[in-house]
Structures are given as structure tokens and as C-alpha cells.
């Protein structure tokens, strides 16, 4: 069995080897069969490339039983048979195909033989055709040459005829004013005439043409110069002139100078108007301004009444209107036509090489800039004359129109500096306006302040006169005016500020074109209006208030403190940072007013040897009176503050009892020299336990706080003065009486009455320390004296 299977298998084995070697050589197998590689390596795989029948057989023999071997063999035989039959059918099919292929080839052979004959016949015919055509062209050669010659002569003759007719035709064109035709005709002939100018006949024609064309150019120039013609005519004119080799620069210049003269006229008109208004403003007071026609009136020299300028002469809107309608619109026209003529023309041939547009553009820019500069200077002057505060809307509208018209120029002339310059002018005007408003506000503020001062001074005088006779009634009449004054003052200022802001607001209104500019959107609002106007005004208010305060401090009360109060309240209303400053200044001012007499008194009396106290001194009464009046004044302006609960039931009697009992404890022992230590210890202990009284706490904006501050500082000053003196027995007693008196009246003004008690105790204590003979007065006596006072 083994011999039966091996021979057919050995041959394919060798072929397969060759096959695989070829595959290896062409690099085919590795990639393609990578997946099969694993199974094909198995020599027992009957379908694999590495099948080894020997191994397979051995394996079968080793592994299988006899039955299985038998089965395997029969299966194998069956397979071989089927494979044999398959092969037979394949061979048969292939044989049939081969037969049919041979038939086809034989048929094709016959067909090709027929085609060969036909091709031979075709080539013979073609040869005869070429021969005939050659013969025909040979016969026609001569005649063709003659015809071409004749046609050449004909065209030449026509040209010559045109040339000879040219002068006449040009003349006719000139008569009919068909310049364009003439120019085009001349242009056609020009080069020919130029070429054949050595021949006398042609020379004659050329000369004639020249003369005519000169004439034509002259006429064109004339027409151009007259300028009355429409823009289309003008442009045609320029075009023709350009074609006539007229230098473009000269043309530009001429055009521009011509336009300039017209624009100058407009400007002159504007300037004259400006002068007129200036003259009317000055009211004909000065002769020199009216006389020089050419001299521009310098804005600085023309003194202008701020409230007359809008009414006298034309108002600014009219002025700008006129400027726009006359100057700016004609300028726009000029620019447009100029651009049409020189810049935007399609360029052709030789003209293109001359680089006209650039040159022309430069000229145009210079021209526009100079004219615009003049115009701007005029406008600026006009705006500067606009010093009045009242008619802001007119100015804004005028500026708006001005700006809008300039926008048109910028559209026409993209690279020009004119619009930006114009915007600058607008910005400048806006700034100037703000400054004017500021100064107006300031003067207004000053005026109203002087009014207030006068109003304050008048009642003051009245009070001063009345107080000698002890009139409380007159002061009552006078004082209610304070809040009214404040209200009117702040109302005035607020209204003024509001109106100013409203008019400034016009600058940024939506329908105004320049409000969209970045400057007006950002900087103008923040920088100009807020910083420049509002803030500086408030600063000004603060500063002037401060000046009042300072001067008051220096001169010792020449400014009424009421005014300071007013100012402080005003500042409070505006919520600026300097309020507290001013308020403290006010405080100090009021204090110094109260304490000055005190100090003076202390200075003037030799305390060592005063007489026995019989009365409360008048100074103390004055202090109380002053405090009351300040209280009234402050109360009018500030609301009541928080007050600590009144421990003393707000009645004088209980208070005096309280104070007397307290004083007995506090002072009585200290005045006996036998036991000084007790007092010192007691007062020290007291100090340790009592919370430290802050004398200089910041002032709040209510009546109680302000008055507390004033009283605290006054008493502190009193204390310092006392400490600098040396007292005799009666001096001490006088201080006792005074302090008691103050205690009786001052507590009601302050937020915490313990404070007054503390400070007054401190004063009496210090006085006792500074006393050479400390023998205090009986509390009851003090009370009697104070009651009497």
C-alpha cells in the first residue's frame, strides 16, 4: 500500500519545492500565506505543502488500529477516485476550447488577405490627387501677386486722401466744436505725418494740422479756464487736453488753483461773517478791529461778552451750516471731479507710464489739507467765540453737522488727515465747553456762597446787637434761615450741576454722529465729564471750604462757624472724602471760639489772689450760650444722633444731688492736706477701673456727635489751661463754681453725660492739685451760687 501511494506523491513533492523556491525568489509567499504557515508545516497534513507521506504513513500505522487503517484506506481510495474523475472532466473541457481557438485563427488569416488589396488601391489614388493640385497652384501664382499689390496701393491712397483732407476736416470739427473727433483724427495722423515730414507736401499738411490743433487746444484751455461748464464737459476737456500731450501736472495745478479761487471766496465769506460777529460783539468800542480787512481778528484780542455772543451776529449753527453748505460741499465736488479726472481714469498706453494718479493724489491732498486747515482755523475761532453757557444744543448740533460733512470728505479721500483733524476740533470744543462749564459753576458757587455769607452776616449782626440787651427772640428769628439757606444753596448747586450735565449729555446723544467715536464713548464721559467737570467741581467746593476753614483758623474766627457748618453739610450731601476733615475743622473752629475767652480769662486773672466767688463768671454763661446756639445751628443741619440713656432723669435737681454726693466722695478728702494719699489712690483706682474716655473719637454726622466733640475738646482745653496755672483758695472755689455751672448745663448736649462729669471732675481735680491752699467750697454754697446765676 505504501508503494502504491509514494510514487505519485514523490513527483509533486519535487515540483512543490521548485515552486516554493520561485515563490521565495519573487517574495510572494511569505506575506500571502502567513496564516497558513502553521498548519502547512505539519508533515502529516495531507493537503499541506510539507506533506511527507512516509511520516504520515508511519504516524497512521503507529496510531491507528487495523480497523481504522482499513477505514482510512477505503476513504483514501474514494477520494483518489473522485479526484481522477475531476481531472478527466477538466482535460476534456480544455480540449474543446483549444479546438475552437484554432478555428478562429484560421478565419482571421483569410480576412487580412482581402484588406491588404484594398489598401494598395487607396494609396495609388492619393498619389494622383497630389499631382493634380500641384499643377493648379502653379498656374494661379502670377495673378495672386498682382491682386495683393493692387489692394496695397488702394489702402495707401486712402490714407493719403485722409491726410490731405485732414486740415479741412479739423477745421470743420473746430467749427462744430466736435473736439473729441478732431483730437482722435489728429492722433491717428500724427505719427504718419511725423514720419514723412521730410517731404514738403506732408510737411505742409503737418503744419496746417499743428496750427489747427494749437487753436483747438487754446479753445479747450479757454473752456477749461472758464470752468462754468458742467463737470462732464470739464472732464472731457481735461481728457482731450491730456491726449494732446498737455502736461498733467500743469493741468492739475490749474484745476486746483481754479477750484481754490472759488473755495477761497467761500472762506472769505465765512471770515467776513466771523469778523462781523466779532465786531458786533465788541460793540464797536475799538476802531482798530474794524479797520484791517486782511488782518484776521485774533480771538484773544476780541473781548466777548459771554451772554451776548449767541444773540449778536449769526449763531454758530448758522455759521457752521453756511460753512458746510458752501465750503465743504464745493470742496467735496472739487475732490470728486478731480478724482474723476486725474485719478480714477482708466489708464492707457503712454499716459500710464507717467504715473499721473500718484502725483495727482499728492497734489490733491496738499490742496485739501491747506484749505481744510484754513477752514478749521475759522471754525475753531468761531467755536472759541462761543463762550456763552446757555445754548449748548446749538453748538452740539453745529458740531454734529460739521463732523458729518467731514465724514463725507473722508469717504471721498480715504487717506486724508482732514477728518481726524475735524474730530480733534470737535473734541477740543467739547473739552473747552467742559472747562467753561466748570468755571461758570465755580463763579456761580462763589456768588451763591457770598450770598449765603451775607445772609448769615446780617442776622449775626442783628443778634450781636440784640444780645447786648439780652434778646433771645431775635436769635430765634435769625436762626431758622440756616436750613433754608442750606437747602437753597444745595438746590442751586444741584440744579446748576444738573443743567450742566444735561447739556453736556447732548454731546453723547445717540443721533449725534461723533458720539460714536471712541473718544466720546469712553474718554469723554469718564475723563472729560466725570473727572474734568463733576469731580473737579466737587474738589473745588472742598478746597474752597477748606480755605475758609484755614483762613478761619488763622485769623481767629473771621468766618462764622455757621458758614463752616453749612459747608460741611454741603460736602456731606456730596459725599466727598473731605467731609470729616472739614467737619473736624468746624469742630475745632467752634471750640476755639468757645475756649478762647476761657483761656483769655485764665490768662488775665492772677488766680492766686482772686476774691471769694460770689457768682458764676460771665464767661461761663457765655460758653453755655454759645454752646446752645451752636446746638441750634447744628440741629438745623444734622439729624439727632443716638444718645445714651439719661441717668439723671434729665432734671436739674436730681443731677445736682448726684453731683454733690459724688463730689463729696471724690474731692472732699483731697482738700485736706492731712490725707492726700487717699485721694490719689482713689483717683488712681478710679482711673484704672473707669474705661478710658476717648476724647478725640471721630465725629459722626449727627448733632449729638458734633456737639459732643465740641464740648469734649473745649473741656480738654480748659483742663490744659487749668493745669498751667497756680490757684489760690478762691481761685479753686471759682473753678468749682464754674464747673458746677457747666455741669448743670452742658450734659444735655452730649451723648454720654458721664463724659462731661469725668472731664469736669478732672478739671476740678487738677485745679485742686494746682492750688496753694486747697480748701474747697461747700457743695451747698456752690449750688446756691449756680442757682442764682
Amino acid at each position, binding site marked *: 500500500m505504501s508503494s502504491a501511494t509514494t510514487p505519485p506523491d514523490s513527483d509533486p513533492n519535487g515540483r512543490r519545492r521548485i515552486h516554493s523556491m520561485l515563490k521565495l525568489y519573487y517574495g510572494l509567499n511569505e506575506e500571502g500565506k502567513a496564516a497558513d504557515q502553521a498548519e502547512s508545516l505539519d508533515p502529516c497534513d495531507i493537503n499541506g505543502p510539507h506533506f511527507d507521506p512516509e511520516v504520515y504513513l508511519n504516524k497512521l500505522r503507529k496510531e491507528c488500529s487495523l480497523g481504522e487503517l482499513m477505514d482510512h484506506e477505503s476513504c483514501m481510495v474514494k477520494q483518489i477516485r473522485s479526484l481522477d474523475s475531476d481531472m478527466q472532466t477538466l482535460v476534456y473541457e480544455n480540449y474543446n476550447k483549444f479546438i475552437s481557438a484554432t478555428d478562429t485563427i484560421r478565419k482571421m488569416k483569410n480576412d487580412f488577405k482581402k484588406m491588404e488589396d484594398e489598401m494598395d488601391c487607396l494609396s495609388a489614388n492619393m498619389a494622383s490627387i497630389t499631382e493634380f493640385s500641384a499643377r493648379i497652384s502653379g498656374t494661379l501664382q502670377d495673378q495672386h501677386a498682382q491682386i495683393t499689390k493692387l489692394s496695397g496701393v488702394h489702402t495707401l491712397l486712402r490714407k493719403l486722401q485722409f491726410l490731405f483732407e485732414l486740415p479741412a476736416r479739423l477745421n470743420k470739427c473746430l467749427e462744430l466744436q466736435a473736439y473729441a473727433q478732431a483730437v482722435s483724427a489728429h492722433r491717428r495722423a500724427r505719427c504718419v505725418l511725423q514720419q514723412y515730414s521730410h517731404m514738403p507736401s506732408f510737411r505742409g499738411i503737418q503744419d496746417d494740422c499743428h496750427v489747427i490743433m494749437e487753436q483747438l487746444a487754446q479753445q479747450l484751455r479757454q473752456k477749461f479756464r472758464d470752468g462754468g461748464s458742467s463737470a462732464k464737459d470739464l472732464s472731457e476737456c481735461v481728457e482731450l487736453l491730456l491726449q494732446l500731450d498737455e502736461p498733467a501736472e500743469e493741468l492739475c495745478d490749474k484745476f486746483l488753483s481754479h477750484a481754490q479761487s472759488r473755495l477761497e471766496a467761500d472762506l472769505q465769506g465765512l471770515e467776513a461773517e466771523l469778523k462781523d460777529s466779532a465786531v458786533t460783539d465788541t460793540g464797536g468800542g475799538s476802531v482798530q478791529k474794524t479797520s484791517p480787512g486782511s488782518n484776521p481778528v485774533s480771538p484773544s484780542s476780541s473781548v466777548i461778552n459771554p451772554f451776548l455772543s449767541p444773540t449778536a451776529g449769526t449763531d454758530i449753527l448758522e455759521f457752521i451750516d453756511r460753512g458746510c453748505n458752501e465750503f465743504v460741499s464745493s470742496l467735496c465736488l472739487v475732490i470728486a471731479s478731480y478724482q474723476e479726472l486725474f485719478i480714477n481714469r482708466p489708464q492707457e498706453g503712454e499716459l500710464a507710464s507717467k504715473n499721473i494718479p500718484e502725483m495727482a493724489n499728492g497734489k490733491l491732498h496738499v490742496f485739501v489739507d491747506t484749505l481744510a486747515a484754513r477752514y478749521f482755523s475759522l471754525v475753531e475761532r468761531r467755536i472759541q467765540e462761543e463762550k456763552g453757557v446757555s445754548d449748548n444744543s446749538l453748538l452740539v448740533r453745529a458740531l454734529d453737522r460739521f463732523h458729518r460733512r467731514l465724514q463725507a470728505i473722508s469717504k471721498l479721500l480715504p487717506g486724508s488727515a482732514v477728518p481726524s483733524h475735524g474730530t480733534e476740533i470737535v473734541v477740543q470744543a467739547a473739552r473747552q465747553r467742559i472747562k467753561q462749564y466748570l468755571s461758570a459753576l465755580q463763579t456761580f458757587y462763589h456768588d451763591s456762597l457770598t450770598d449765603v455769607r451775607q445772609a448769615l452776616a446780617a442776622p449775626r449782626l442783628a443778634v450781636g446787637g440784640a444780645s447786648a440787651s439780652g434778646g433771645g427772640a431775635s436769635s430765634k428769628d435769625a436762626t431758622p434761615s440756616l436750613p433754608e439757606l442750606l437747602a437753597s444753596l444745595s438746590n442751586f448747586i444741584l440744579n446748576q450741576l444738573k443743567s450742566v450735565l444735561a447739556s453736556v449729555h447732548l454731546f453723547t446723544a445717540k443721533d449725534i454722529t461723533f458720539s460714536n467715536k471712541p473718544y466720546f464713548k469712553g474718554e469723554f464721559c469718564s475723563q472729560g465729564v466725570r473727572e474734568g467737570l463733576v469731580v473737579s467741581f466737587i474738589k473745588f467746593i472742598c478746597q474752597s471750604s477748606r480755605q475758609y476753614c484755614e483762613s478761619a*483758623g*488763622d485769623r*481767629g474766627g473771621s468766618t462764622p462757624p455757621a458758614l463752616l457748618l453749612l459747608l460741611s453739610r454741603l460736602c456731606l450731601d456730596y459725599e466727598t472724602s473731605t467731609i470729616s476733615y472739614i467737619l473736624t475743622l468746624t469742630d*475745632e473752629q467752634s471750640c*476755639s471760639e468757645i475756649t478762647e475767652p476761657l483761656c483769655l480769662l485764665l490768662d488775665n486773672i*492772677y488766680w*492766686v*489772689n482772686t476774691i471769694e466767688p460770689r457768682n458764676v463768671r460771665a464767661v461761663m454763661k457765655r460758653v453755655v450760650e454759645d454752646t446752645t446756639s451752636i446746638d441750634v445751628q447744628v440741629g438745623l443741619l444734622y439729624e439727632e444722633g443716638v444718645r445714651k440713656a439719661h441717668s439723671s432723669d434729665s432734671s436739674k435737681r436730681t443731677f445736682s444731688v448726684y453731683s454733690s454726693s459724688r463730689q463729696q466722695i471724690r474731692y472732699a478728702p483731697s482738700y485736706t*492736706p492731712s*490725707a*492726700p*494719699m*487717699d485721694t*490719689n*489712690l482713689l483717683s*488712681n*483706682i478710679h*482711673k*484704672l477701673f473707669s474705661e*478710658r474716655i476717648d*476724647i*478725640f473719637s471721630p465725629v459722626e454726622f449727627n448733632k449729638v456727635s458734633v456737639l459732643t466733640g465740641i464740648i469734649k*475738646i473745649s473741656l*480738654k*482745653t480748659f483742663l*490744659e489751661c487749668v*493745669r498751667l496755672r*497756680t490757684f*489760690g*483758695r478762691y481761685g479753686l472755689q471759682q473753678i468749682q463754681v464754674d464747673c458746677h455751672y457747666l455741669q448743670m448745663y452742658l450734659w444735655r448736649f452730649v451723648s454720654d453725660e458721664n463724659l462731661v462729669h469725668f472731664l469736669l471732675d478732672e478739671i476740678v481735680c487738677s485745679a485742686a*492739685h*494746682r*492750688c*496753694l*491752699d*486747697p480748701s474747697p467750697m461747700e457743695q451747698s454754697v456752690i449750688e446756691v451760687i449756680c442757682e442764682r446765676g
Partner: protein
Amino acid sequence: MGSKHTNELTYDAQQCSPGSSSQAFSVVNVLCFLVFWLCIINAWAVVLSACFQARALTAQTAETDAIRFLVGTQSLKFDNQIHIIDFDDENNMINKSVLLHDAGEIWHISGSPADKAVLTTCYSKSEFCVCVSCRPASESRVLTCAAVWRMPPEWESGNHESPDDSSNNPQTLELLCHLDNTAHGSVACVLWEPMGDGKRLISLAENHVLLWDLQESSTKAKVSTATLEGKGQLKFTTGKWSPHHNSTQLATANDTAIRGWDLRSMSQIYCIENAHGQLVRDLDFNPNKQYYLASCGDDCKVKFWDVRHINEPVKCLEEHSHWVWSVRYNHSHDQLLLTGSSDSRVILSNMVSISSEPFGHLVDDDDLSDNEESQQEDKGKEPLQDSIIATYEEHEDSVYAVEWSVADPWLFASLSYDGRLVINRVPRALKYRILL
């Protein structure tokens, strides 16, 4: 340290009233002890006495080794004392010695620049206090006098004794010379010639400037006087002898004006009218810039003047809320300025912009203007701006005197009316910033 304070207190109390109850003492001791400990955190406080007020404070000018302050008490009823406060820097200890000054209450005190044992006081006599009630008015004027004193040599040996001993018999000052001013009225202050030999001094009496020359430690010659002309009752409140110009200039204050005097001709050289809105309380010369001086007054302001341009102050500080009683330049770093006020605050400010050494290097006085300009230019990069360095609120009563230590330029003392002396240091960070 705590025990030391307690001891001092006990001693004070006993001295003041030997017979009072011990219960009160213990209370006071405990309480004051607490207060001390609070203060010790960043300052050293000493209470002179529970029963003495004090106004006069000076550093002992001639003493350059020890940190020593002299305090004069002010009392009408008891014998007044001069307290010598020694601050031991290394151990943070405060030692106190007491000398008796029985002439009267001390309004002003200053130490001789040459001899550390010599000092002057202005004191008011109170000897006829008893007679006030029975005497006619002519006798009862209180007159402030001035005298030169020498400290007894033994005080130093006795200052470390137990307080009880020293309180029992404090040493008495030895009178060297009485500066007789009966012809001229009350003396406001006495000034030593700065950096002089301790022989020349000036007293300001009412409206006279008296220049004294001490001879042989006791005799005196009044060289010359200058009198302030003017209507009304004008009198000097304070003055300062300029350390510049070879010590030939003097600045005085009366009412709201500051006047400069040339001591050679005894004539006025400048006058700043209305220097302050109210009374001028104190003056001090910039130790390094000859034309600069600082003043303070009742308008709560401290102003800096260039005496060549007296129309307006160079600078103005408004930090205090009540009268400013004392202003002092640091002796070596003139950007440091100390002010004491009756709002019981002491303020230490750093005035870099008008100091002589704005950037840590010395600039000649001659080109002051250039200096200022460059300051203006360099202000941007200068980290130390004019500023308040610190506000000290240890005092509970008005602070009448502040003084820098002579020995340690970073140390200063302030004295309030209740007799509390507080010794403080310049903050360390700032010190290093100035030094480095």
C-alpha cells in the same frame, strides 16, 4: 523685673504717705503691676510716683554711656524731686534714683552738655502759699525762677540701695548759681549752649533773652539781653539754641510767632509770624540741616520750616487731635521725629523727604535745593516714604514731654502728666532699614 517695679511703687506710696492703709497699697500694686506687664510687651513704663505730676523731662546730655533721663516733678504741696531714670539696655531694667529739689515745682529741666552732674531747672516758688489768703495782692505773684544745680556726688552710689532707704533721706541738689531774673519776670526755659563747654546758657524770661556766662561754677555775668518789642503782654513760651552756625543763633516762640535771634548782636534775624494758628508750644532744630526747624503748637499741627523761606512751611503734619506739646528730632537720624500731645499720644514719624540723609548717604547742606530736587526725582524708587511709624498710646494723660536718649539713638522716653514715663524703641525693622 516685675519685682523691681513693685518695689518702686511701694516706695513711692510710702514716701507719699507713710500712714495710709496697706490694703490700698496691695490693690494699687497688683493693678499697676498688671499695667506694667501690658506695657512691657513693647515698651517699658515707670510711674514716678502716685502723687506727683510731672512736666519736665530731659535726657542727660553729657552722659553718653548710660541711657539716662531726668524727670522733674511738679507739686505744690510736697517737696519736689528730680528722678534719675536709668535704663539698663541689656537686662531691660529700669533703675530710679531720687534727688530732692526743694526750691519749688519744676516746669523745665535741662542738663549741661559738658558736666553730667550739672543741670538747670525752671521752678516756681511757692513759699508764700500759706500767706495767700492774708497777704495783699502784691505779694502773691507766682514767679518762676531758674537755677543751676549740681547733683551730689553720692547719688550714684546710692541709687541701687533699697528704695526704702533712699526714700527716707533722698539727696538734695547742690545749688550752684541762681539765675537772677527778678528784674525780668518769670523764666520760661533755660537753654544750654549746644555742644559747648557748659559755661554759657540762655534763659527766656517774659520778653527778654538773657545770655549768661558761668564763671568758676558759681558767679555769673549777664552778657547781654535782647527784648522783644511789641504791644500787649508778649512773652516767650519756649526757645531752642541752634546747634549750627557755631551756636550763634537762637529760635524762640511767643504766641503764634517764631523768631530767630543772632546772639552776637542780640538782634532779631527772622520772624515767622503766624507760624501756627494758635500758641506755639515747642521747637526743635534739625541736628543735621542748619536751616530746618520743626515747631508744634495748639493747632494740633507739626510744621517744618526752612528759615530762609519763612512764608510757608516746608511740610505740615496733622496727626494729633489736641495740642502738640513737644517735638524732637532724633539726634543722629533726623528723619525720625517724635511728637507728644495732650491727646495722650506719642507719634513717631519718618520724615524722609526733608531729612538730611534721604538715601542713606549724607548730602552737604550747601546744596540743599539740589538735594530736594533729587529727592523729588528719586521718590519713586525710594521705599521709605514720609509716614507715621508708630502711634504710642500707653499714656493715659496728656503727654507734655518727649525726649530721645543721648546714648542710644533708637530709644526715647515720653512723660505724661500723671507721672508715667514710658521708654520705647524705634521698631527694629525700621532701624535696620535706616542702618543698612
